[in-house]
């Protein structure tokens, strides 16, 4: 037996290298207002329309912590099995940049609100979290508009949590799995919408490689990763780059401690600075803010808000509904989908069928222009309506194909199934006389098929189903068509004469 690990095998030398990877994820909390002031943040608002004395750093303005932000941060910690500190502190992280009006960012340095916890991966590896802390976001600097930099401070002060893993990750696949699981948890707890396109989830990667059994080597930081795909691609590229550098045995090419940017166009990372100037953020406790105390009662209140988490739901779906791990995984990956599924089952839909219809139809509609559906939770279809369609198909009132058409029409128009079945003429034809007519017509000239069926090859019948369904406009009951065809073939001896 061989121990499976995620060692990287050099394409040049065949030597094995162990990647060591840690992730830092910034996630925007889903509050209405900013972390320390009452400005209401909305993505895409006109520039500098959402600022106030606090978030623009006017002299004398004092920050006051948004309790909902703390609550969401605590819930996330609880969902990740982390320990919430009974007392934590806000610090000032000092640096000068045009998107930071105060000259410092309010963050948490050595006394974060949360430590520990982590996420178990499917391969059995556990990615430990070192810590999570709360902090405010900076504004946005725009550099591509002429010879000046333009600054929009709407984002300044938006609440973030930054979670930092231990270097427990060994591959791009692990990193992507970790991020997907983290995103699921953040969405389930309602802490964040995790919309990467709107910048509410951002990821930095720390990465180094070393030969098995040797000490860790210099780590490189990669920034600017705004999709999970980029995280995977950047890690793969960076592992290969570092291994090639070491294997060149030219010390001038060896990785140095630096920050690199991922360039998605070229699929490579490149150095952000010629020489890393050591940051000195001169952290100091923020005298404007009290220590943050979280007591048992607060923790209990937040715990009561926690939903059943994805991993627990998956397990239950397999046990309770007999779904496969894959089906359970798809259904639970988004809370809105899982909630919808359960509501369909509650409304009387059978679990397996509901699962199939959601996966084969509803989930494929996301991103559909005609339906104008960007996210699953925008779906204009009630769970009871899907249950109804599933039932209509199960009973044979309509065909599977017709069910799909009906469902789509319901989502589009919001009209009830019964009415649409009539209007669209979707009801199955069960009339034996009409079905026999279509079958007879389809049998004309099909001596070979008939002979095959007589010889016991029942599968040959399938060649006739298509033509019959076509003649019926897709409405003939398939079971009846099969039976009728078999009966006609058996009855018409000697062979049919055209």
């Amino acid at each position, binding site marked *: 037996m061989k121990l499976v690990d995620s060692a990287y095998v050099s394409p040049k030398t065949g030597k094995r290298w162990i990647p060591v990877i840690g992730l830092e994820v910034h996630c925007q909390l889903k509050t209405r*207002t900013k972390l320390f002031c009452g400005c209401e943040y909305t993505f895409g608002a006109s520039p500098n329309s959402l600022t106030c004395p606090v978030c623009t750093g006017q002299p004398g303005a004092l920050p006051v912590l948004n309790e909902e932000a703390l609550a969401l941060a605590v819930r996330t910690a609880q969902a990740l099995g982390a320990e919430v500190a009974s007392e934590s502190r806000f610090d000032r992280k000092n*640096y000068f940049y045009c998107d930071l009006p105060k000259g410092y960012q309010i963050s948490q340095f050595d006394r974060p609100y949360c430590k520990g916890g982590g996420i178990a991966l499917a391969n059995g590896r556990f990615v430990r979290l070192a810590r999570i802390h709360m902090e405010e976001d900076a504004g946005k600097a*725009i550099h591509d508009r002429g010879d000046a930099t333009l600054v929009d401070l709407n984002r300044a002060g938006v609440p973030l949590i930054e979670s930092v893993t231990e270097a427990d990750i060994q591959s791009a696949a692990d990193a992507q799995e970790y991020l997907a699981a983290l995103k699921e948890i953040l969405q389930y707890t309602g802490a964040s919408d995790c919309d990467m396109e709107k910048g509410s989830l951002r990821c930095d990667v720390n990465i180094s490689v070393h030969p098995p059994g040797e000490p860790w080597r210099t780590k490189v930081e990669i920034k600017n990763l705004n999709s999970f795909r980029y995280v995977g691609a950047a890690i793969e590229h960076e592992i290969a780059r570092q291994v090639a550098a070491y294997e060149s045995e030219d010390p001038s090419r060896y990785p140095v401690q630096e920050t690199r940017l991922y360039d998605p166009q070229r699929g490579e990372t490149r150095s952000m600075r010629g020489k890393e100037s050591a940051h000195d953020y001169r952290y100091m406790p923020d005298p404007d803010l009290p220590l*943050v105390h979280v007591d048992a009662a607060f923790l209990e209140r937040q715990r009561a808000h926690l939903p059943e988490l994805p991993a627990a739901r998956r397990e239950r779906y397999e046990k309770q509904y007999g779904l496969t791990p894959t089906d359970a995984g798809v259904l639970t990956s988004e809370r809105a989908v899982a909630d919808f599924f359960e509501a369909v089952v509650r409304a009387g839909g059978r679990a397996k069928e509901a699962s199939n219809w959601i996966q084969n139809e509803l989930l494929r509609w996301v991103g559909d222009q005609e339906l104008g559906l960007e996210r699953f939770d925008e779906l204009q279809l009630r769970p009871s309506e899907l249950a109804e369609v599933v039932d209509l198909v199960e009973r044979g009132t309509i065909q599977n194909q017709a069910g799909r058409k009906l469902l789509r029409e319901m989502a589009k128009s919001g009209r009830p199934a019964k009415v649409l079945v009539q209007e669209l003429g979707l009801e199955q034809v069960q009339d034996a006389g009409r079905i026999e007519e279509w079958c007879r017509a389809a049998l004309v000239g099909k001596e070979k098929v008939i002979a095959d069926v007589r010889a016991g090859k029942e599968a040959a019948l399938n060649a006739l189903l298509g033509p019959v369904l076509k003649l019926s406009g897709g409405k003939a009951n398939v079971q009846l068509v099969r039976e009728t065809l078999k009966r006609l073939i058996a009855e018409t001896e000697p062979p049919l004469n055209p």
Partner: protein
Amino acid sequence: MSEPRIQTVRRIAALARLEVGEEEARGLGETFERILGHFQVLARLDVSALEDEVGPIRPAEQRRADRPALSFPVELALRGAPAREDDFYRVPKTVGGEE
């Protein structure tokens, strides 16, 4: 003026994004030396049992409900801007993270 002291001045100046000339650095170095000298008095105290804090008292703990308050009208927000372009603050070109 000791070389390490000048180094400190240069480092602080770099962090504060200040351009400091040779002559100025010397003058600032002397001032620094005097100021930091005063702090040396504090260094004699044993504070190992104390947590680093910013003062003897912290403001009383209070939190806000997540309810929106009025923001600045954009005209007011940008009144103090060094320069303006559309509804943005306009500042000298500073490319992200470059030191």
